[in-house]
């Protein structure tokens, strides 16, 4: 909201010496953030009103030139010709007797152009007659700016007349303060902020001449939607009457284009008082002007040239023949003020803010009017604002007053029961009753302090004040938030982070400590990414939550896997010249159950907010949502460790992805089981399924060549994705201490030849099981395939350690346990000792 300080000063006694910057600081202290302070026109130095006395046409030059004498007042003439200056001018749109604006020597115009006395075209030119463009306040015409006859005296300072030098505050107004979207509202706030007097322009009706003409009748079909409608009809309007310069200047300063006098005045009064107004061409009206609900199938063409289909939830202003406008949002094209309009009917109304907000939202149409009406406008303003408009149209447009009509249903006033101690209780700071009362009165409240709690009747211009807490906020705000002290409340003794929260941190630290780099990708994915990864059509990962308004048509889904984001981040790093990249991400994914729809439900629960929702309501709300577990994703390309002296970098292999999962399991005290898996986008022959106690938690291994090629990623990149929530939940928080046996260890190695498709872990598990209690540890240390074993077979070498709790093992005991393992492997897998 742009606020010219000069306009503000009409209603509030801001000390003369306060700059715009200082005014903005006062407003800031009461909660109005000033985003900038601009000065209208970059003009410095004497700029005065001049009266053109004589014009001499100079014809000896290539273009017509005028030599003028201009009366500029005693203070601005020169010694030779007191009060008069000779000026050479190239423009031709002015005549002797016109009032113009003169930049006398020493004045600096926009572009740092300083006027000096100079000889030109055979004359001394002692100043400049200015155009709007030269003054930097517009570019609508090239000719000289001519002031209305008699509107000023030669020698007058032209700055205030043109609104030049006026400072304009750009204020952001929070949505609860609709009243502040006007000079009236901001002037009141400025007055309160510095305790100076305020003249309210929004209470007294302007004096109008006696009515004399035909009045257009008014009606409202629904007082819940429109409880006040005032019409003022004016005739004999001169559609060619110009808008006064000061009004144009002010509208320009608040960012509104000048259109015609009648339209400009509706805007001017709206910015001054805050009441949106709409002027119709009265000759286009048939019968009664009525606020009513639109009928299905009706349409209206709005002023922006768009034909809009209406529904029964649209409130319109209509006459007996047609819909004239979208009430409070935008006028209609049919009845708009034109160059031939001579009779004007002005609508000023009070609408239900929710109705306007809904219409504005439904039609995606936000106007200066709807912005104010949806935030709430003073219900007493329509008659005041429309009288102000009528007065101005009579004064500047030659109109005559024909009459007023209107309908209303007055609401009950708002009276709040208010404990004067409440502000102190909320703030933690003492406010004496007298200050509380004074602040409430300054806002416009009438306060009955005869009984406690007080009765506070709020002013009509503050529909936002509806409950005691609203008044509390105003008391603390006006007294100053800076007066609130600082104390630290004592929370009950805490128990710190939960185990899961601690474990999640440990997982991140562990992975980063292994040399992996954490990324945080966007959760948006698309079908093309599933396709590139080779995820099959029926895969549950394709059953993803769908956005109604995705930023990109390519990524309308919420991720069910972290891999698309990781492959994107890997591609970006590779494109930036990195070949060895190890990434991880810990984020939630959104997993729908088979029953849940990707687009949600059509009739979601909406519990009342006037009480705690029931357990059933809460359960129904939860049931809307997908399961959102944390996943861990890891993606490795190139070498896990960089090249270093004496160590050749080895590219990350399928086993590294599995190792990262297993090591994380060890860090968290969870044993992760590995089995052969088959799940896109992994290479079907190099994919491990990871489980905890038989419960699948994810996959690790090398990515399928086809997927890598589709994604433009390096060959042999490897990945891991697992359900981290499940892993953390299984974490062994309180580990049991092992028995430390100290009798000598016996070490045995065995090499077992099995068919190539037998899983090493399966053999290991069988041997471990069969070797019994004495086996302390078993590890796979070599896998051999080649000429030393039969075709289609491989040799698995295991290192076994035996130890007993209570004795040194005898050689026969060890041999027996070892043989038991070998025999079991032979039985289960046809393994033979090599």
């Amino acid at each position: 909201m742009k606020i010219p300080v000069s306009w503000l000063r009409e209603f509030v006694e801001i000390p003369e010496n306060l700059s715009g910057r200082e005014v903005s600081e006062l407003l800031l202290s009461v909660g109005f953030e000033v985003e900038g302070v601009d000065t209208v026109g970059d003009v410095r130095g004497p700029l005065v009103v001049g009266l053109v006395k004589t014009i001499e046409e100079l014809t000896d030059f290539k273009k017509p030139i005028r030599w003028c004498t201009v009366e500029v007042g005693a203070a601005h003439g020169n010694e030779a010709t007191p009060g008069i200056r000779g000026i050479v001018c190239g423009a031709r749109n002015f005549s002797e007797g016109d009032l113009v604006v003169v930049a006398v020597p020493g004045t600096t115009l926009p572009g740092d152009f300083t006027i000096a006395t100079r000889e030109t075209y055979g004359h001394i030119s002692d100043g400049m007659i200015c155009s709007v463009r030269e003054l930097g306040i517009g570019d609508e015409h090239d000719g000289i700016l001519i002031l209305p006859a008699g509107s000023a005296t030669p020698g007058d300072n032209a700055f205030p007349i043109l609104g030049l030098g006026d400072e304009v505050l750009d204020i952001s107004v929070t949505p609860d303060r609709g009243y502040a979207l006007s000079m009236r509202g901001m002037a009141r706030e400025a007055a309160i902020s510095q305790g100076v007097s305020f003249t309210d322009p929004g209470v007294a009706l302007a004096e109008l001449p006696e009515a004399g003409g035909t009045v257009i009748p008014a009606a409202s079909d629904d007082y819940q939607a429109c409880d006040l409608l005032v019409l003022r009809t004016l005739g004999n309007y001169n559609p060619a009457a110009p808008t006064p310069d000061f009004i144009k200047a002010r509208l320009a300063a608040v960012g509104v284009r000048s259109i015609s006098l009648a339209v400009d005045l509706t805007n001017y009064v709206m910015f001054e008082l805050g009441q949106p107004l709409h002027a119709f061409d009265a000759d286009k009206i048939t019968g009664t002007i009525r606020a009513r609900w639109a009928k299905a199938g009706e349409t209206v063409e709005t002023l922006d040239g768009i034909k809009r289909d209406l529904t029964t939830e649209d409130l319109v202003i209509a006459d007996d023949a047609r819909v004239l406008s979208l009430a409070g949002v935008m006028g209609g094209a049919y009845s708009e003020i034109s160059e031939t309009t001579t009779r004007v009917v002005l609508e000023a109304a009070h609408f239900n803010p929710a109705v306007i907000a809904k219409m504005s939202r439904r039609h995606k149409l936000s106007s200066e009017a709807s912005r104010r009406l949806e935030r709430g406008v003073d219900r007493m303003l329509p008659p005041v604002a429309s009288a102000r408009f009528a007065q101005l149209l009579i004064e500047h447009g030659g109109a005559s007053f024909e009459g007023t009509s209107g309908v209303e249903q007055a609401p009950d006033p708002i009276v709040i029961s208010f404990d004067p101690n409440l502000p102190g209780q909320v703030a933690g700071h003492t406010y004496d009753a007298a200050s509380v009362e004074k602040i409430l009165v300054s806002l416009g409240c009438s306060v009955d302090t005869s009984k406690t709690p007080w009765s506070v009747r709020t002013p009509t211009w503050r529909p936002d004040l509806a409950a005691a807490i609203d008044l509390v906020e105003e008391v603390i705000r006006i007294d100053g938030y800076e007066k609130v002290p600082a104390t630290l409340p004592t929370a009950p003794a805490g128990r710190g982070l939960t185990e899961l929260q601690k474990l999640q941190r440990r997982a991140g630290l562990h992975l980063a400590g292994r040399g992996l780099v954490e990324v945080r990708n966007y959760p948006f994915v698309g079908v093309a990414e599933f396709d590139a990864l080779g995820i099959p059509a029926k895969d549950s990962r394709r059953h993803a939550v769908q956005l109604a308004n995705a930023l990109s048509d390519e990524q309308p889904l919420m991720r069910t896997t972290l891999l698309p984001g990781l492959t994107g981040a890997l591609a970006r790093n590779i494109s930036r010249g990195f070949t060895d990249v190890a990434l991880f991400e810990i984020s939630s994914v959104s997993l729908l159950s088979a029953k849940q729809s990707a687009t949600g439900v059509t009739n979601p629960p909406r519990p009342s907010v006037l009480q705690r929702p029931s357990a059933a309501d809460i359960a129904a709300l939860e049931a809307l949502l997908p399961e959102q577990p944390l996943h861990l994703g890891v993606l490795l390309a190139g070498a896990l460790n960089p090249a270093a002296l004496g160590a050749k970098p080895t590219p990350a292999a399928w086993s590294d992805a599995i190792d990262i999962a297993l090591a994380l399991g060890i860090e968290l005290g969870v044993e992760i089981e590995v089995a052969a898996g088959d799940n896109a986008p992994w290479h079907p022959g190099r994919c491990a399924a990871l489980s905890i106690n038989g419960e699948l938690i994810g996959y690790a291994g090398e990515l399928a060549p086809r997927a890598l090629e589709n994604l433009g990623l390096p060959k042999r990149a490897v990945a891991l994705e697992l359900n981290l929530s499940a892993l953390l939940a299984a974490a062994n928080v309180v580990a049991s201490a092992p028995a430390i046996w100290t009798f000598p260890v016996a070490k045995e190695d065995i090499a077992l030849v099995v068919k190539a498709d037998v899983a090493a872990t399966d053999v290991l598990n069988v041997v471990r099981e069969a070797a019994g209690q004495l086996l302390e540890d078993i590890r796979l240390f070599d896998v051999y395939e080649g000429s030393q074993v039969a075709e289609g077979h491989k040799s698995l070498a295991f290192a076994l350690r035996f130890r007993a709790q209570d004795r040194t093992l005898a050689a026969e005991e060890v041999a027996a346990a070892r043989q038991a393992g070998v025999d079991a492997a032979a039985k289960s897998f046809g393994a033979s000792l090599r």
Partner: protein
Amino acid sequence: MSAPNKSFDPVEVTTLSAEVLAGFVSEAISAITAANSLDELKEVRLAHTGDRSPLSLANREIGALPPAAKAEAGKRMGESRGAVNSALATRTQELETLRDAALLIEESVDVTTATGVRAQGGRHPLTTIQEQIADVFVALGYQLAEGPEVESEWLNFDALNIAPDHPARTMQDTFFIGSEDSGIVLRTHTSPVQVRSMLNRELPIYVICPGRVFRTDELDSTHSPVFHQVEGLVIDKGITMADLKGTLDHFAQSMFGEGIVTRLRPSYFPFTEPSAEVDLQCFVCRGTSVDNPDAPCRTCRSEGWIEWGGCGMVNPKVLVATGIDPEIYSGFAFGMGLERTLMFRHGITDMRDMVEGDVRFTRAFGLGV
């Protein structure tokens, strides 16, 4: 070896005379001192203490001496051998020390070639700043609360006194699931976690809720459709705005240094009343750059304060919607953007750096901010 001869005069056995033995010792010590390596010393040891050495040969003669002479000759022999052995031990130690020193010099390496053997990992600063903030509040006794990112519209808006027609609920700001009427959104703030806390936790409530949130902004250098917030919520008996101010000051000092304070400016949020914007005193210039063109401050643009977040006293309507009696309990809430906090604290100039996953960015922050 000859048999003992009782009449034998020791003086006549010249090899055992004091002079001769002294000569052997002196020769041995000269040779020991002259040995320049442990190998040379080994030869010297053999020559002067070995079986064929003059001392050993002389020693054999002792047995032939008459008993009266044996003791004296034995004593002389012992002293002579002791002197040689002591010289040998001393020289051995000297030569070993020299050898060890030479070996260390010989084995020296360029230790600066050891860099970069292991890859450098890193944690994202958005992760670690969440942990850092959580730690500040956990130390005060707060609990860390979490909630889902795909959230019901009721928890994200209705329960927070954000009316159905509030502009924030339009598709211009909020990501809806399925359609605008599905009742499911991507949470636009972490405030639904506050609602969940009020619905599910025992009173009093002291929680800190960091997390990922979503708005329909296109990504540019200062906006992102996905960003992070941290919110704090306290519901207890007698909680005041002064408690809010003191908590924010404590937070500011914990994150930005001793003595840094916050400033509250009136504002509006549907879920708090009174509501305020939170400004942070500039932790770089501490306000000295204001009206001081000679020492401008880039962090606060010489304004002395940095916009940090929003806060307020929990609106009684929100307490009612979650079943908490506003006549007994009051509370405050505050919230800050984490990207913004990281940007001004760490001099990050482009939002995109935080979302693109460039390894250089994350690595710069190590394991924690």
